[in-house]
């Protein structure tokens, strides 16, 4: 499926940025249920890629296939230059995986978990101790290193999980919903951790159902819906697919609402909420002229909020069909950017 957004020269001679993940037509079904219906991915090395989608969209299945846990029914993929089917151990040597459910050994301590990873990566004992101490310190786990991992809080377990993933210096890290179930503070800590990973040059493949998270972290985002990639691009590119910015005026008094609605023709009415929506890109210039217009029309709203299009709009537009009340002139489908279907 060609696309103007995805670089297509990766298999050419020059190879400026070798792909960390390159997949064509991955399919997987369980019985009658098609989970992945032919997805293509191209993730340049050293970038953060977010696979965004609701529960059941197939995110975890994609991660499981790319991390060699399960085999695809169709399609081909290379991870870190190794073919998934032909050289799974080559893939395994290059990746680190932190799944959705904590992959720590709860019965042993945090430090023992780390040493276990060091041993399995065949690090010499001294190196193993050094890496263990360093990562426990870096992930703020040094104080609890000698407690059994099952006594850790959710955030601590997740940090230990990622620390264990990092022991072998993986070049590509898969994070399957790394912040699901974390409290807001732990989530922000996790975001910080992920940002630091990238500065070290690794490629991060993360899945999330939080649009904000993809927006915060990812260089490129693919929206997965019903086993297909509904759109792919940067957060900015995806947002541009939906020209949905507006200013929302809310009134407490029905009479004021009615007279404002009469004065501001062209505004979208929400009679139940006593709110008016006026299209706007949210720029200072447009806001000033809008406010001037309100003044001259004698309209005084009780609340004014500026709504710029966010990934939620994109997400809903791509995944929820046509019921988008706020975007009356939504484009049919975003087919000049991304991999529209």
């Amino acid at each position, binding site marked *: 499926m060609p696309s103007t957004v995805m670089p297509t020269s990766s298999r050419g001679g020059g190879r400026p940025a070798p792909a960390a993940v390159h997949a064509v037509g991955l399919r997987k079904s369980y019985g009658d249920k098609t989970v992945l219906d032919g997805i293509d991915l191209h993730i340049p090395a050293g970038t953060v890629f977010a696979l965004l989608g609701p529960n059941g969209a197939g995110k975890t299945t994609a991660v499981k296939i790319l991390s060699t846990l399960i085999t695809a029914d169709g399609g081909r993929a290379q991870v870190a230059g190794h073919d998934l089917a032909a050289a799974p151990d080559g893939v395994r040597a290059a990746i680190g995986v932190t799944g959705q459910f*904590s992959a720590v050994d709860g019965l*042993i301590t945090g430090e023992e978990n780390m040493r276990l990873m060091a041993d399995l990566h065949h690090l010499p004992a001294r190196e193993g101790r050094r890496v263990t101490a360093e990562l426990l310190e870096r992930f703020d786990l040094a104080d609890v290193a000698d407690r059994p991992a099952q006594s850790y809080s959710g955030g601590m377990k997740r940090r230990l999980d990622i620390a264990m993933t990092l022991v072998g210096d993986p070049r590509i890290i898969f994070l399957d919903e790394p912040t699901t179930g974390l409290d807001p503070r732990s989530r922000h800590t996790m975001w910080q951790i992920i940002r630091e990973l990238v500065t070290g040059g690794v490629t991060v493949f993360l899945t999330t159902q939080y649009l904000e998270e993809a927006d915060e972290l990812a260089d490129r985002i693919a929206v997965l819906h019903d086993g297909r990639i509904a759109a792919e691009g940067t957060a900015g590119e995806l947002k541009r697919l939906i020209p949905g910015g507006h200013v929302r005026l809310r009134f407490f008094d029905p009479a004021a609402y009615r007279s404002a609605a009469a004065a501001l023709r062209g505004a979208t009415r929400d009679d139940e909420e006593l709110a008016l929506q006026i299209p706007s890109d949210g720029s200072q210039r447009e806001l000033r002229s809008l406010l001037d217009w309100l003044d001259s029309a004698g309209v005084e709203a009780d609340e004014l909020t500026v709504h710029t299009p966010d990934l939620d709009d994109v997400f809903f537009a791509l995944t929820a069909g046509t019921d988008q009340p706020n975007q009356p002139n939504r484009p049919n489908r975003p087919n000049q950017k991304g991999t529209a279907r």
Partner: protein
Amino acid sequence: MSSLSLAVRDSSTMLRRNLLHARRYPSLTLNLLLTPVMLLLLFVYVFGDVMSAGIGDGTADRSEYLAYVVPGILMLTIGGTTIGSAVSVAMDMTEGIVTRFRTMAIHRASVLVGHVAGSVLQCVAGVVLVGAVAVAIGFRATDTTVLEWVLAFGLLTLVSLALTWIAVGTGLSSPNAEAAGNNALPLMVLPLLSSAFVPVEAMPGWFRPVAEYQPFTPAIETLRGLLLGSEIGHNGWLAVAWCAGLAVLGYLWSTSLFAREPK
């Protein structure tokens, strides 16, 4: 690194992990030892006088019955300990850490080999502990040579290995720890139906095949012969054949179950 040294290295890492579990949570192992010890005390001190009438020519006393029953109790100890292995394998398979192992470039079977090696060591330790209880209440081996002691230990280890592979397969095929405990129960029940407590000749005719055509009877008879000097006969080879067969079967079963794709 060659694949063999990789296998050895990863398996010993996994063994260390399992020993760590056993050391950190000894109650599971010790609980499993309670059954053989209680059965030993029950059969010797409560049923002993009656049971002893059933062995030999009817003139045996309680201490002779103690000697008779200890080899069976030791084999039962192994059966009980391997139930624990089935449970811990089933528990382990529900943990995310095993999923992590599957995404790492390590020797595939090392996860299982670690469990097996750990379980065999636990079995041997259990046999030594239960054996010490038996000695404490008066059990003595009779005229056992060094070679016979070595063979006895070898036999106990071989039985442990064979039953452990079966237990690992049972654990892998069970959906959860409770089911694994139930499914592995035959490992504890079979010795009860063997010549452990009464000679096969003393059993009703219709039941004898159950006792004769199962691994515990030849293994127990062989151990009796080594420790007490009774006739071993063809039981030695039978025991070795049973163990080798079960070990190979359990190994093939377990590795093919582990190679299945996780859901």
